[in-house]
């Protein structure tokens, strides 16, 4: 099953309460995905020349301040990780790729959940309502966000197997559905140099998008490529630095609803997820067509 939600703020009011709305939407999707939950939230851009990473530690007593000192030693500046449950966000005066490479080499016990300038990804096993509380989503402001509640079908229930999946700098993917050609596609992508951490099908879709984007495709082109290259069921929501995109497979068994007001654009697996937003009753609402890429970006919406 799984539940997915997306919210794009068009007004300052929604910006300021993005976390509150996102938490409410995720709560509504709890029974579609009780195994794990996650969000990607776009907020507080790192200064030019710096990058922002979200890291995960399996150790509940992780000394994040010590990590800050280690990063300072490697990259200078004064990086100060901000802890949020099992995760921490840190801004470093360096290229994201260099920091990621450093984490992999020097701190292999940590996992990079997201990298870029604006994205933060938090995800954890357990019930979505618990997740919302533990990560204090309510207090987060931001411009837009995606969320996911998982009912696992294709692979184990782990933090790494939870959504959203990072698909590159400031990019992420959430998925409702299941892919059937992920094993072969994973092998093909590995030969192209794409790295995979899990046996999860959605990670392959994320890797596919990352690869297509790296090869020069636009987001629309990369998503349209999914129609030809991915076999299975999917409603995808993709987050970018400026907005988000939605795509359903041509058979379109997996549900999706879109709605828009003057203050926000939102997507959800069901109307329940959107009904909690302010002004939802008067929103324009529709079901996205199968095989059609929908994109909202700041420039396009403003």
């Amino acid at each position, binding site marked *: 099953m799984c539940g997915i939600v997306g919210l794009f703020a068009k007004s300052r009011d929604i910006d300021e309460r993005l976390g509150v709305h996102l938490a409410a939407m995720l709560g*509504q999707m709890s029974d579609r995905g009780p195994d794990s939950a996650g969000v990607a939230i776009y907020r507080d851009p790192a200064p030019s020349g710096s990058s922002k990473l979200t890291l995960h530690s399996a150790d509940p007593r992780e000394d994040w301040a010590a990590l800050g000192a280690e990063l300072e030693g490697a990259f200078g500046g004064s990086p100060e990780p901000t802890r949020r449950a099992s995760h921490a966000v840190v801004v470093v005066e360096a290229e994201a790729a260099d920091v990621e490479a450093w984490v992999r080499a020097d701190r292999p016990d940590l996992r990079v959940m997201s990298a870029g300038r604006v994205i933060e990804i938090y995800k954890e096993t357990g019930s979505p309502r618990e997740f919302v509380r533990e990560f204090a989503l309510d207090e987060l402001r931001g411009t837009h966000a995606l969320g996911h509640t998982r009912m696992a079908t294709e692979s184990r229930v782990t933090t790494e197997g939870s959504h959203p999946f990072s698909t590159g700098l400031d990019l992420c993917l959430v998925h409702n559905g299941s892919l059937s050609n992920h094993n072969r596609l994973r092998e093909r992508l590995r030969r192209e140099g794409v790295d995979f951490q899990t046996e999860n099908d959605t990670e392959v879709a994320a890797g596919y998008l990352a690869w297509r984007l790296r090869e020069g495709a636009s987001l629309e082109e990369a998503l349209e490529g999914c129609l030809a290259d991915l076999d299975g069921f999917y409603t995808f929501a993709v987050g970018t630095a400026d907005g988000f995109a939605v795509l359903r497979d041509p058979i*379109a*068994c997996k*549900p999706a*609803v879109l709605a828009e007001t003057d203050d926000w654009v939102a997507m959800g697996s*069901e*109307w*329940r*997820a*959107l*009904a*909690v937003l302010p002004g939802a*009753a008067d929103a324009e*609402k*529709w*079901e996205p*067509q*199968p095989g059609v890429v929908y994109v909202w970006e700041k420039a396009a919406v403003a």
Partner: protein
Amino acid sequence: MTAVAAREAAVEVVDLESSTLRELNQRLHDLTREPGPTGWRVLNPNGAHAVACGIDAEAEVEIEGHVGYYCAGMNKRATVLVRGNAGPGLAENMISGLVLVQGNASQSAGASGRGGLLVIQGDASSRCGISMKGIDIVVGGSVGHMCAFMAQTGRLVVCGDALDALGDSIYEARLYVRGSVAGLGADCVEKELRPEHLDELAALLARAGVAAAPADFRRYGSARQLYNFHVDHAGSY
């Protein structure tokens, strides 16, 4: 007390923000065994699943807002009106009565319906009338792909357009579409619109309260080539 006021007073109002869905459905189910209010108004459905599902009574239920999956499923005798949109599986396996949605319906509306009338004033999504077995469905707007897939009997009327694979693997249902059809499914063909079809279409449109001229529609149905296995066609199955 005027007649209107008396009727208003007889309407039972259930607010799903203060009552549980289970309470509502149980009270509606109780009508099968013992008499109770015939008029019901449901407030704040907010996309809840299975609202007014499984009624078997002469009740009239008005739902003020959008509903989620399986609204009015298995409906028997009751009239269910939704002032909003409906999620997947609307009026699934309906037996009799009337289900009317003023907005749009998501996929699989009227799936496997046995009887009664389902009216969707807006658009219906994919797989509307899938495996229909006697239900009549009137859609005021357009429908998605794979509608009336494996339809066995009943009538599907679409006042707008139909997307791809209409009537795929159809048995004996009759399909009427006023707008364009993106593509017909396997064994579904256009058929002549004879006077008896114009008559049944006029009656269906009247019952659904939809103003449309029967002569503007085209009729589709089964070519009856998939009924039996033909060994000569083995390569094309």
